[in-house]
């Protein structure tokens, strides 16, 4: 038997020899959330925006028709020379037509060969989102082969496109509605504002290791992009 198996067996033996604890029923989460976190149905979008902004995210409202122009003006305002995007998303076809080819870069290669471009040449990454959380102003991101994890992580500016009809009251509600436990991606994320730290004398600084800025493009029409 290998050392590893000896350790495993010893640990389980010790755990199983412990005094059997009285079984504790799993608490009723459903009841708790039904009673405690009732977000009023009105002004949910406004509350989401207020909370997202409180975490230093910039929220820009737009419509299905106007979102490409909105993204364009964000790129100009932020001085983005190279925008990185994923292929085959609900954004990609439109992005390809409205953002000039020399300004738009696709995440086509694996990170191993793409590292120097990603770390040195990209000013911003644009991603879709799977929704937002009203309670905390957070975004749900499920990175994929089209939109890898580092797309929303390494560039100093993250632009996230959020459909206003994809808001959930709480993380708990989102997990249930989207049936997360039936199958998670290799990486699922909740993103709330740009990266930050207060490690030096408790002084809050944005732009620690992740994006320095987060811009949420909030598409307010009922239809999806």
């Amino acid at each position, binding site marked *: 038997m290998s050392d590893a198996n000896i*350790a*495993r067996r*010893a*640990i*389980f033996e*010790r*755990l199983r*020899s*412990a*005094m059997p*604890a*009285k079984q*504790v029923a*799993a*608490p009723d*989460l459903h009841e*708790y959330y039904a009673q405690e976190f009732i977000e009023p149905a009105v002004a949910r979008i406004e509350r989401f925006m207020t909370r997202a902004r409180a*975490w230093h995210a910039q929220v820009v409202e737009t419509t299905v028709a106007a979102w490409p122009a909105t993204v364009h003006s964000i790129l100009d305002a932020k001085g983005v020379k190279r925008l990185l995007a994923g292929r085959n998303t609900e954004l990609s076809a439109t992005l390809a037509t409205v953002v000039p080819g020399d300004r738009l870069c696709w995440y086509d290669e*694996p*990170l*191993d060969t793409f590292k120097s471009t990603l*770390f040195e040449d990209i000013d911003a990454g644009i991603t879709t989102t799977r929704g937002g959380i009203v309670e*905390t*102003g957070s975004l749900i991101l499920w*990175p994929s*082969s089209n939109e*890898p*994890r*580092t797309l929303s*992580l390494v560039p100093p500016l993250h632009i996230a496109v959020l459909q206003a009809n994809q808001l959930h009251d*709480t*993380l*708990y509600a989102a*997990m*249930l509605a989207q049936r997360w*436990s039936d199958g*998670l*991606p*290799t*990486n*699922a*994320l*909740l993103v*709330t*504002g740009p*990266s*930050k*730290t*207060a*490690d*030096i*004398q*408790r*002084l809050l*600084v944005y*732009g*620690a*290791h*992740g*994006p320095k800025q987060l811009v949420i493009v909030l598409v307010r029409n009922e239809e999806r992009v």
Partner: protein
Amino acid sequence: MSQPHNSADPRAFKANAHEALADQALRGSFRSAMDYLTDRRAAQFPDREAFERLRRLGEGIRQHALARLPELLEQLETRLAANGVMVHWAEDAAQANRIFLDIARRHGARRMVKGKSMVSEEIELNHQMALADIACVETDMGEYILQLDGDRPSHIIMPAIHKTKADVSRIFSEHLPHEPYTDDVNELIAIGRRALRDEFRNAKIGVSGVNFMVAQTGSLVLVENEGNGRLATSVPEVHIAITGIEKVIERLEHVPPLFTLLTRSATGQAVTTYLNIISGPRRAGEKDGPKEVHLILLDNGRTQAYREANFRATLQCIRCGACMNHCPVYARVGGLSYGTTYPGPIGAIISPHLMNLASTRDLPTASSLCGACGDVCPVGIPIPNLLMRLREAGRHVTPAPRQQQALKGQGAARSWSEVLAWKAWRAIYSNTRLYRTFAWAASRFRWLAPPRQAGWTQSRSPLRPARRSLREQWSKRAGLRG
């Protein structure tokens, strides 16, 4: 200015505490830091009743998981393996370090980038890897500052809380001489970001801790603000996570309430920047993410706490640090005085199991039993009771009636003079004649009471028997009144 502390030895607690108490600057910075954190937490829990309801949920989730710990660990292992994560088991620090070393050697790695992990501090990973010529680079801003300065964390959430901005300016200018000197905090963080970007880019191995492990889905959940945890677990080819066996919970839906309790209790934030749920290495077709993910599950004394019904609640902890922030002793002596990986009240109740009660015997006494730690604990750990039980275990060689076995170092705080004093007390107080003789003699010879009475007179005036015992005074009055 804070001096680097290297001596991690809980036996030096009393000496360290005295030294720290005399350091007015350090006391001032801890005081204001703790006030800041307690105020921020209070703002997140404005309604005591609402806090209690959420805390009951958190406590229930953790107790439910611990009651089924062996089954949940098996389920977790099966799910993780199905997701392609390699699971390793380590009984102690040496085994855990050997697993790290084996993985590093297999990949020819000379450097690892580390996200924040208290368990990696517990096994002294950086030191052990350095002996094998492998550099571990801390990437949490606070931890990075401490590593440059050769110092240790003094708080589990805000590790460099004992450093001032001026300290950091000095440390950066000493260790990163190519960067311009600055005392602007934005620029200091920008320097840290620049210095660590190349580390993330080039390291073959990323190391992280874990906040929660989900048995149902085989997921590792990481909570952070800086993004270094995401980088360390996304960019390098290999990700090694290490955590204690107690961190498992049953269902994914159990994450939201614990996440809320953790962030609100720790830093007074409703949410952190990132909640990072990792359920496996890069799949076919994916362009990034580690090609290998390893999870090291560490015992290192946790099964001792698990074994004893009296101490099992210790393992409910979600490492928020609220007990430290609210502890009047911690706020005065600071985190480094404890000489353990986990300082403060949680350190005092977990360290005796991780180390042993002999070297940590003074820690359970580092409390006034004011109860603040238990009041704020987001998962309802009865910390003051556990401190009392550890004090008792330290003073008695024989385990308490409800205890299964002796703890490591059981009875280590036992002193012969104390045992004799109590034996004498019992003999005198259980015999009327002896008691009266003693009381008579004590009041007549009260001038013999020594001015120095061991520990008592360190901070109190000496004890001296009364001129006459209460019984004598009473019978005299009764006699006068006839």
